[in-house]
């Protein structure tokens, strides 16, 4: 069973209602936050079911603008609803910020009514084939719904079923289309992708790649992105490179001289970190992954983020606040989330002592004293 990651990611227990209105428990097989997809499996035996009807998957590359499609789902909880519309666009691109991010695919845009609760539901063509997974709607707009193309989903399903996760390679390059660069250089025949950013300590940085270079070939495959709609394709190519292996990149340097480097790909970091709730202190912490580090512009030494705070808790009283980085406890640096959790479980939460936290927001620190329970 296919749905959105944002539907299933925090679920502890999943119950599905079939079209027969029968309720069946399900388990999560795998999640892929990068494409916002999740694969679940119904526990048919538990409900004494042998088989259930299932949907056929279509080919989203064959979609055309104007084609009539149907969206199925539970908009605002109104289960088993169907709405109809046309394909408004097959190559909608959103930049890399906000929750519309989807680095590896373009979105299918439809004017079929899509509301909260439609998420994870299918977008089907008139042959009854699933062509997309409805995932987003623009709430202040009208009839602006977005679906993940089923061809993207097919790849993700395969990976999740085989490995339980989608393994992606990372080289630490952010890309930009070359449309304006071509005009600037007055080189109408230029092909390639412009490097706009190199991540710190990435394979690309170590190999000497720099912003401004134009990459023409990755591991033997020619790349070209004249328009930004072509960028997901390039990112997909990089992400599907073998992890931990040497690959070759051909590029034009600042003088447009052809060059090549080899670098060893790394596994892409986690989309978001593990979260842990410190019940006694009254806050939750989250691992700072490279993605979060970049997003909040944190430094390498920032490891643990305070992701939530319980009202009226000792932590709130001490002045701890959500969004701050946890730097030190009793003058000892917080090195990583596992170390913190271990220390918290074995010591802090039960030693009844005062603990002095050093938290940081931006460049400003604050000491927060969490008071231990008085021994009486």
């Amino acid at each position, binding site marked *: 069973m296919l749905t959105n990651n944002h539907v299933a990611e925090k679920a502890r227990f999943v119950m599905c209602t079939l079209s027969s209105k029968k309720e069946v428990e399900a388990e999560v097989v795998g999640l892929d936050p990068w494409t916002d997809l999740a694969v679940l499996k119904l526990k048919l035996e538990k409900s004494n079911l042998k088989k259930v009807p299932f949907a056929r998957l279509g080919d989203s590359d064959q979609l055309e603008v104007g084609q009539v499609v149907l969206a199925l789902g539970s908009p605002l909880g109104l289960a088993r609803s169907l709405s109809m519309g046309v394909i408004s666009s097959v190559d909608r691109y959103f930049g890399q910020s906000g929750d519309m991010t989807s680095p590896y695919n373009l979105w299918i845009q439809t004017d079929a009514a899509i509301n909260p609760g439609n998420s994870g539901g299918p977008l089907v063509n008139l042959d009854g084939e699933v062509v997309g997974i409805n995932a987003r709607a623009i709430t202040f707009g009208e009839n602006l719904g977005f679906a993940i193309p089923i061809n993207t989903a097919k790849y993700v399903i395969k990976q999740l079923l085989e490995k339980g996760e989608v393994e992606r390679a990372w080289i630490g390059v952010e890309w930009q289309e070359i449309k304006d660069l071509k005009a600037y250089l*007055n080189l109408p025949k230029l092909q390639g992708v412009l490097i706009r950013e190199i991540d710190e300590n990435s394979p690309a940085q170590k190999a000497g790649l720099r912003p401004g270079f134009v990459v023409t070939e990755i591991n033997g495959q020619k790349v070209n992105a004249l328009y930004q709609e072509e960028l997901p394709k390039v990112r997909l190519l990089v992400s599907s490179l073998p992890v931990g292996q040497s690959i070759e990149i051909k590029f034009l340097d600042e003088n447009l001289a052809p060059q090549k480097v080899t670098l060893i790909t790394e596994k892409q970091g986690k989309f978001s970190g593990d979260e842990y709730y410190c019940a006694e202190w009254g806050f939750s912490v989250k691992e700072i992954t490279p993605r979060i580090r970049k997003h909040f512009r944190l430094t390498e030494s920032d490891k643990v983020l305070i992701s939530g705070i319980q009202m009226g808790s000792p932590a709130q009283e001490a002045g701890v606040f959500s969004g701050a980085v946890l730097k030190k406890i009793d003058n000892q640096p917080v090195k990583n989330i596992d170390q913190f959790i271990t220390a918290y479980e074995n010591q802090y939460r039960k030693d009844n002592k005062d603990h002095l936290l*050093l938290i940081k927001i931006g460049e400003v620190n*604050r000491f927060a004293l969490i008071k231990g329970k008085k021994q009486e």
Partner: protein
Amino acid sequence: MKWILQVSLLLSLVSFLPAQKNWQKIFDAYSNKIVTINYYEQILSFEEIEDKERVKRHLTGIIVDDRGLILTSSAIYPAKIEFSASFNMMASAKIPTEIKVKFKNGIELPAKFIGKDDDLGIAFIQLTDSLQTVGVQFSKTNKLNIGQEIFLLTHLPESYDFNPIIVKRRINSIAGGNEPRYYFEKNFSSLTNFGLAIDASGRAVGYFYGGDRPVVNRLPFSGISSGGLAQIVLFNRFAEQVKQPPVFKHKQTVRKKWLGIYMQPFTRDLARYFGQPDLQGILINTVIKNSPAESAGLLPGDVITKINEQPLVAEKDSDLETLRQIIRNQKADTVVLEIFRTQHFVLKKVNLRGSPISQFMAEEVANPELDFSVKELTRDVILNRNLPPDTKGVWVSRVERAGWADIAGLQIGDLLLAINDVKIQSIDDIKKIFKQIEESKPKFVKLFVQHSGNTRFIFIKTNYQTRRGDE
């Protein structure tokens, strides 16, 4: 019972008559020493590379000497001179223009902006014609008491023709230790939250102001305010400024002293945690990079116990103001701090410097062809945009709407890292490259910018050949 009523009536009459006389006396003595000031404030525009719109505003002023020096609210120039973590973004860096002072007798005279003190919420202007004026003689009263009667002299809003208004209030609350703040309930309409404060015996004791709320002053109808507390500042706190007014010289304005730390109260709980239940002081939580505090070797976690042998005590946030004021108003360049660190006391000599400038004082360079402006990076921008503390360069301060840069996608706040592959490290770099571009008139200009942490290239399509307007 009748005689009681008669006596009390008689008594009230006896007490009423001198009181009325008192009001009149005070009003007559001071109403010719308060003036209305009108001026034009430039309105900041991010969408134009020049501030084109302006608005006329009115304030109350107090004549303070015989050479035409007038004390008024710092609202006359809302832009901050010194860096601070929070500032009013919507202020223009341009000083007020066409200042005119209107006296009680209706005469209107031009004046110029001298300078201001943001800590005190005051500014000074001076009549441009050399003219003998009669200033308020302030008494050296250094203390007000709770419940003490106080007269407040200011002006009514425009809808009441800026008529002078005299109001009697009582001191309702006194806060702070060494430099007490005297609050009263300011529940009357006035042109601004600023005016003269006079005690019951008719002595001018200082000015009142409605606290530091610059945003309120930017709104229309800002003159009409009611409710809330205002505070009285006694003459001893601003006598020096009257004698020697702060002079505004853009970047070169003499700024107050700066240590470069963030601090928090060292509470009893913290003292117990540190194993020193009787220790009092101020806890340093942050030492700003490249600051006097960093050079002196101060560290987060240090407790400042004394400054120049004066003990420091901070149990709550408002207590931190004491140290802040000592530092900011320090005459000497060096102070000695006593620090408690890892169970020992150490003395640290700190060479204070002037506070860094705010983004308003930073040099701005506009390129009217490419249609954007840049400013040198100041500490407040670095803090606000969460940039690494040692970031060098310039940032995009304005982008003209529908100009070449806007069309290419340049945004306000972008950090400009390079133009045409030339690295930009300073405002001088940008001037040089702007000049080159102006001469070579290229078809495209390539920018390398950083926008909320991400870098990208922007290609500005120019149109030097076809002037705008001819297209």
